[in-house]
């Protein structure tokens, strides 16, 4: 069988701006694959190229062995696509949206009704079939959207920021559904995200930053590149704290986005010593195994999503 999704030296320009540069990766059969990066990192461009909405400027992208540029109809037949803003008609009922959505893939009649019912049950929206989509919550709409995208039984499911706009409960729900669907239909799932906890649930993660692929591996392998524990401190004068720590302990200290980060082994044993060394300066200390966030900071010197400008969003 062909590789579900593969790109080689993929490149996309918007005028003079480089949105993607030399991006190469391959997604394995049945994987849940995450494209992780901050907004503007290139994930949406990549999503749109894979879903045949945008042509690459250079390199190749293929879905199930079909080139997105030259064999778009075949790509479209192999793909289920879930958009960030739902591609459902709010004026139509759930059943109507599924019916018309299925028609687009040449499905009709009893076969279509059968599949629609089966998926509505799988996504637990079967009791809402005759309600208009505009009356449903964001989480339910996303589930209907996923049901619609699965009607043609695609080999690859492509999702753009699937948990945007969902409350925490709906988000957990979404993930259990994705994992269940993968197990049941043997689908490959490719999703974009800027959320760490979401990326950590993927089988493999590709980190995209400023249009470039920085790393592509399992979350644990990525975290293992840091090797030691990570200590994060906050305080009123992070720069001064960093200087003092560096002077007193000789550690490599990084100040990032108002917090002080140190990579040291057995970080938890150092907490007391460290707070005492900076009397009255420390507001909070976190010690733990490195997360994907730490990997991202290490690779880019930037945070994935600062709480200040992300909170207000969707």
């Amino acid at each position, binding site marked *: 069988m062909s590789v579900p999704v593969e790109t080689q030296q993929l490149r996309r320009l918007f005028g003079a701006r480089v949105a993607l540069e030399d991006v190469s990766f391959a997604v394995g059969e049945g994987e849940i694959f995450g494209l992780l990066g901050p907004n503007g990192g290139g994930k949406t461009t990549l999503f749109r190229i894979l879903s*045949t909405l945008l042509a690459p400027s250079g390199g190749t992208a293929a879905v199930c062995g079909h080139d997105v540029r030259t064999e778009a109809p075949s790509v*479209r*037949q192999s793909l289920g696509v879930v958009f960030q803003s739902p*591609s*459902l008609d709010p004026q*139509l009922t759930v059943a109507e949206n599924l*019916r018309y959505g299925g028609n687009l*893939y040449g499905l*009709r009649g009893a076969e279509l009704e059968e599949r629609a019912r089966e998926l509505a049950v799988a996504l637990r929206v079967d009791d809402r079939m005759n309600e208009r989509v505009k009356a449903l919550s964001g989480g339910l709409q996303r589930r209907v959207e996923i049901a619609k*995208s699965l009607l043609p039984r695609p080999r690859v499911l492509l999702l753009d920021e699937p948990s945007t706009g969902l409350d925490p409960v709906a988000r957990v729900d979404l993930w259990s559904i994705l994992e269940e669907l993968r197990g049941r239909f043997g689908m490959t799932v490719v999703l974009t995200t800027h959320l760490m906890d979401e990326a950590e649930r993927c089988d493999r993660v590709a980190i995209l930053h400023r249009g470039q692929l920085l790393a592509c591996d399992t979350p644990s392998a990525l975290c293992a590149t840091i090797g030691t524990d990570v200590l994060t401190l906050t305080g009123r004068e992070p720069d001064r704290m960093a200087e003092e720590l560096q002077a007193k302990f000789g550690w490599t200290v990084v100040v990032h986005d108002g917090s002080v980060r140190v990579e040291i082994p057995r970080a938890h044993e150092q907490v007391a010593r460290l707070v005492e060394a900076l009397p009255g300066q420390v507001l909070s200390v976190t010690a733990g195994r490195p997360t994907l966030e730490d990997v991202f900071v290490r690779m880019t010197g930037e945070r994935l999503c600062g709480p200040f400008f992300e909170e207000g969003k969707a």
Partner: protein
Amino acid sequence: MKNQPRQPGRTFLWLPALALWRREVVRFLRQRNRVVGALATPLVFWLLIGSGAGPGFRLPGQPEDLTYLAYFFPGTVMLILLFTAIFSTISIIEDRREGFLQGVLVAPVAPEAIVLGKFLGGMTLAAGQALLFCLAAPLIGLPLDTAVLARLIPALLVVGFGLVGLGFLLAWPLESTQGFHAIMNIFLMPLWLLSGAIFPAAADSWVRYVVMVNPLAYGTAAVRRAFHGDAAAFGSLPSYAAALGVTAVFALLMFALSVWMVRRRRGES
């Protein structure tokens, strides 16, 4: 669940076109304010302008027994067709970026199906609304017998198809609905004003030449001839068959251009 064997690279035409058509009609019927909006404005225009001119007012070169309300009637039908067609295409702009159309564009659907579904949907709504208004024709002394209907219904359908096409062509490349409102005011409304809808162009004015190349003028002429037949003297107004023929050519041209544009921009938008 196993994957069914499918022909590689196949795209679908009729089934998606039918689905898009039905979707268009269903959502229109569920949005009552759209039904009212596209009908009420032309109706008010017609009543105010038509009545304001008074019962004795006659346009030069028109039949003696034709009141202004009756002259303006086909023009109002055109305005209803234009408004409904425009309202049904203006939604493309947002629908394509964050609505139902996104899903259509990533589905194995032929570009002809996307255009055909939209055109048929808009045409149905426009012709339906216009026909509803035409039921009022007998009230002001215009005939509405089977002979009139046999000319009127094809005219409404063909003109509706062409106007949806014009709207589609204008809306598809746009990024925002604001842009469309500007086009509506500086391009579409003047086209309607200069279509013979509210006055016939004088034989010695430059407007005559604009009317001659204005596709909407042939639409208005087709609707006017549908009511009065070819025998009535309306200056240089083309015959029913000629007006409908030109409108049909225009409609097909709009269709072809729209398909070309969807094909070209699908992978770029």
